[in-house]
């Protein structure tokens, strides 16, 4: 879709011109697509805002509720790990667990919600021409906004645990940013696949759970026995979560290898997810 949008001074005749042609190899001209996407970013924000309003994000009690859920989950896991006796039961471990859990939930929430974003947006897709990527991206925005209050809770735990407050904590910002980018790519991928396989959300439930256990959240990455280490590296969230732990929890500069790997996963996910989604999106209108 090519659009050149200019309005004449009198505003009577728009000189907007839209040209629709078949896509070669399934991908529309990306420059225009991305421009259109940027132009309508307000839609993604507004959709996220409506969603959050539905979850009572804008009231004090609503926010409290949204914090208590992951917090209790974290405490339950902490209790479980204590019983099994591997985690060590220290408050530093609790801090690590909570931070990793909250960050992980941001990604898993984006994937879960993103999967439903396109099939749930049926009527709008059939009635209006807009870049469909706005739908999974708005899920990512929602989950990011849900992550923010939990980050505040973590800050409290961090201070109570007596963990060091160093400039290294600022590494958390680019790391979270990379996780958000990764989440966007993953959300786009599953959103598109869901259109073709409507039971994907059923599988996703289990896959996300396994992903939780396979990530260094309920344990430290260093505690994983040698023979399982390769599985750890295959996990796209292993680099960012470990880097997050190193920098924010313990005040060390995260290793370059982890940062590069996080970046690689993030960029890879966006490219794979984005290309797959954008090349298929015109089929959504006929498949929904």
């Amino acid at each position, binding site marked *: *879709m090519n659009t050149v949008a200019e309005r004449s001074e009198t505003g*009577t*005749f*728009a*000189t*907007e*011109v*839209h*040209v*629709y*042609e*078949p*896509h070669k190899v399934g991908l*529309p001209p990306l420059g225009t697509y991305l421009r*259109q996407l940027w*132009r*309508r970013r*307000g*839609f993604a924000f*507004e*959709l996220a805002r*409506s969603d959050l309003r*539905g979850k009572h994000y804008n009231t004090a009690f609503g926010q409290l509720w949204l914090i208590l859920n992951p917090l209790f989950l974290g405490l339950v896991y902490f209790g479980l790990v204590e019983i099994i006796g591997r985690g060590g039961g220290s408050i530093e471990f609790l801090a690590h667990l909570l931070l990793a859990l909250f960050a992980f939930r941001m990604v898993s929430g984006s994937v879960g919600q993103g999967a439903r974003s396109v099939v749930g*947006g*049926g*009527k*709008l*897709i*059939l*009635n*209006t*021409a*807009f870049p469909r990527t*706005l739908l999974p991206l708005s899920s990512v925005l929602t989950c990011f906004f849900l992550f923010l209050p939990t980050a505040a809770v973590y800050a409290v735990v961090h201070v109570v645990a007596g963990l060091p407050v160093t400039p290294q904590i600022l590494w958390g910002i680019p790391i979270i940013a990379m996780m958000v980018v990764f989440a966007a790519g993953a959300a786009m991928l599953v959103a598109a696949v869901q259109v*073709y*396989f*409507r*039971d*994907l959300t059923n*599988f996703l439930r289990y896959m996300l759970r396994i992903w939780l256990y396979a990530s260094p959240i309920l344990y430290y990455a260093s505690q994983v026995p040698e023979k399982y280490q390769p599985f750890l590296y295959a996990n796209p969230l292993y680099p960012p979560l470990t880097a997050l732990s190193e920098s924010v929890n313990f005040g060390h500069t995260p290793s370059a290898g982890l940062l590069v790997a996080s970046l690689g996963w993030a960029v890879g996910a966006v490219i794979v997810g984005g290309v797959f989604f954008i090349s298929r999106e*015109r*089929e959504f*209108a*006929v*498949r929904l």
Partner: protein
Amino acid sequence: MTYRTTIEKKPTFKKTLMRLGRHERVVRTIEAIRDISFDVPHGTVLGIIGVNGAGKSTLMRSVAGILPPTSGRIEVHGRVSTLLALGVGFKGDMTGRENVVLGGLAAGLSREQLDEKYEEIAEFAELGEFMDLPMRTYSSGMYGRLAFSVAVNLEPDILLIDEALSVGDARFKEKSFDKMHELCASAGTILFVSHGLRALRKLADEVIWLHKGEIAMRGEPREVSEAYKQFLDLREDDVADEDV
């Protein structure tokens, strides 16, 4: 415009696996539109008629950019506003106001433009306090009124209407007709699909008759609707003429 669709309502992994064993194919190729070529000058009101399944809605959606063509080229000069049968609301849980804002943003309007237009839209639709209630509480007529109001009040250069002319009570119908006349008069272009032949004769400058994805006839409303009526072997009474 050819598209592939599945005849399964809900494709799942399980069904796919079952199908693989039996070598069944459930994906159908549908040639919705074959060879069509036409120009619509600015300011024309074009009516589109045809039997169900002729490709009218697909044509409208192609012009709107919702279904890009598989071959050929579509050039649209101006801002398009659509009123396609399913209407504006897309999340029943959200209020009319939220749906209008989201619809506007998705269509590419800026915040300022939307804020300006919102009052006009709400006034035209005459839904009062229902604007702030979830859309699932609306009756189908209210739904249609809001959709119509959104589509016409966005000052489109080109308005596409798909079988949605007969929404609302008699008073709203009158208002809609007047608004449509206004739009026609202000050199706007309107493409509309209708099965109500009287509406076509009243409003349209030209009519295209689509049949099985091709243009069967194009010309003056009276001529084309007569030919269409003859083709369908219709009785000479009001049923076909009205958009009931």
